């Protein structure tokens, strides 16, 4: 099979404007992956499936990964007035690194018996811009797996034919596989309609417990 660099080169040559990054993997498994952009996601997937050299006709595994917001501390030199004299001192700047949700596709070829080619898609953030293109129209096997990621991570797949919760029940709030999910202390607590009881009931709900 071609190396990922060659695949990347061919994608960027055939699909104008597509952004593809190579994500290295240093551990002994040696499975690097390709990060593709959202706008050309479906087009790139179509290329991977239909290209006669690759023929990646079998999408094996779809995984959601949650990368929460992190705070990165950086050492910088800042000018500061020390005893009336402006001098250069070391300071620490805290910078918020935007978290994102990631979907990883492991794709193999049954026709040529090679693989995997690992493709990643990333959302812009974790709360609002959680839309990604669905690859279910390209590979049917993503249907239940993307539903599962929608259910457990909250990624909204545009173009998915039947995006509903799959493992949790309808009416469940929250996405339990996210790293910051706090489970309610009692799922089956049923409040009676009185003021102070309702007040107490609210503390049993996950989203209020976080706030």
């Amino acid at each position, binding site marked *: 099979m071609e190396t990922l660099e060659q695949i990347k080169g061919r994608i960027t040559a055939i699909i104008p404007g597509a952004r593809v990054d190579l994500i290295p993997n240093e551990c002994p498994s040696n*499975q690097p992956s390709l990060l593709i952009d959202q706008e050309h996601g479906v087009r790139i997937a179509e290329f991977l499936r239909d290209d006669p050299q690759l023929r990646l006709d079998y999408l094996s595994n779809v995984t959601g990964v949650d990368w929460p917001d992190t705070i990165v501390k950086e050492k910088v030199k800042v000018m500061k007035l020390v005893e009336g004299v402006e001098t250069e001192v070391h300071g620490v700047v805290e910078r918020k690194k935007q978290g994102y949700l990631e979907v990883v596709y*492991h794709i193999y070829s049954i026709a040529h018996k090679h693989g995997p080619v690992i493709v990643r898609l990333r959302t812009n953030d974790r709360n609002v811009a959680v839309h990604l293109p669905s690859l279910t129209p390209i590979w*049917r096997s*993503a249907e239940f*797996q993307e539903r599962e990621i929608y259910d457990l991570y909250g990624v909204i797949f545009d173009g998915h034919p039947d995006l509903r919760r799959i493992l*949790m029940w309808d009416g469940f709030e929250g996405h339990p596989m996210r790293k910051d999910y706090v489970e309610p202390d009692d799922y089956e607590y049923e409040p009676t309609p009185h003021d102070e009881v309702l007040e107490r009931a609210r503390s049993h709900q996950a989203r209020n417990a976080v706030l």
Partner: protein
Amino acid sequence: MSDAVVTPLEGVFAPLQFPEPGAPRQLNYSVAPKMSADGSVAGDFLEVAMGPQHPSTHGVFRMDVVLDGERVVKLKPVFGYLHRNHEKIAENASYLGSMPYTDRLDYFCSMTNNWAYALSVEKLAGLQPPERAEYIRIITAELTRLVNHVCLVGFLLQDMGALGTPLMYAFREREKILDLFEALSGSRMMCNYMRFGGCRVDLPAGWLENAKQVVENFPRFLDDFENLLSANEILIARTQGVGALSAALAINAGVTGPLLRACGVNYDLRKVDKYGIYERFDFRVPLGDHGDVYDRYMVRVLEMRESLKILRHALRDIPSGPIMDPKAKIRGFRPKIGEVYGRIEGPKGELGFYLISDGGPNPYRYRVRPPSLINLTILEDMCLGRNVSDVVVILGSIDIVLGEVDR
């Protein structure tokens, strides 16, 4: 009895109301009118929930079926009743801590679940099991394949109405193999046997002889079983041409295992990936032609015969030696930062584990690729236009275990 006595049920259920002749039809939510071409009502579509408590669903599983008479016009699988978020639990446990939990995924095949997980972690950490451990893994995995396939055939016939007898025959053979597992690991079904870089304990004294005995006797049972079943008129009538699946759709929908090979696609990970030491063994990959339920049954029976070939070979050639990689660490096991996807040919299809390590003692992300769940994707495509009785048979031929579907 006086008129004043009121039975407890009275007042709970509304009395039956019969519509006036000529009145507009009252439709409740589960019935929708089927319109004929001239706009008149020609009958009803009936929505039926098959399951979750239904003996043919092999667990807590529901199919919302819309029926036109006896024909299926829509089918949506509903599951999650057994969901316990296995992946989240594993992300909060150490790498070794989720090994016993993998037994509970597909509780018929705990040895192959163990192997898939151990294989992924070994790829992640760069461990290499010694020769003897590889042989033990192949022996236990192929015995698991026998257990799974023989039980599946029993359950499939149970679904077709052959109550009891074939299943009991199958369970009798399964019990002999489970005795071997118990002697080896201490547990019949929840084996928890593999470790990263090898196996937990060595074979007990006399185990190989017992295993050889089981393997020697198994073909006779298979011949009996096949004599009774493979040319059976009822089995053929119920399975041939039922639930046929095309190879193109099967590949696109990610169907793996005996289902895919029944469509005639030659894709067996034991041959493709050559994980473990499978390349040393001489076996063939049985393929079907039509992709229907009968082909799936036949592929599984033939796979059992090929498994027996591997077992005979492995039980003869197993060397002595260590069973653990000396580099493997049980305590303080922290793989380097990175990620891995490892997969094996489980009895139900491709069983994979995707792990992301952040250098800590527990995986940052732990994902199971469940073959049962993904094989269910095409359940609706296979059932459309068939009768309800065929739905039961088709579901039985997919071979799902709800512990793995729901995780």
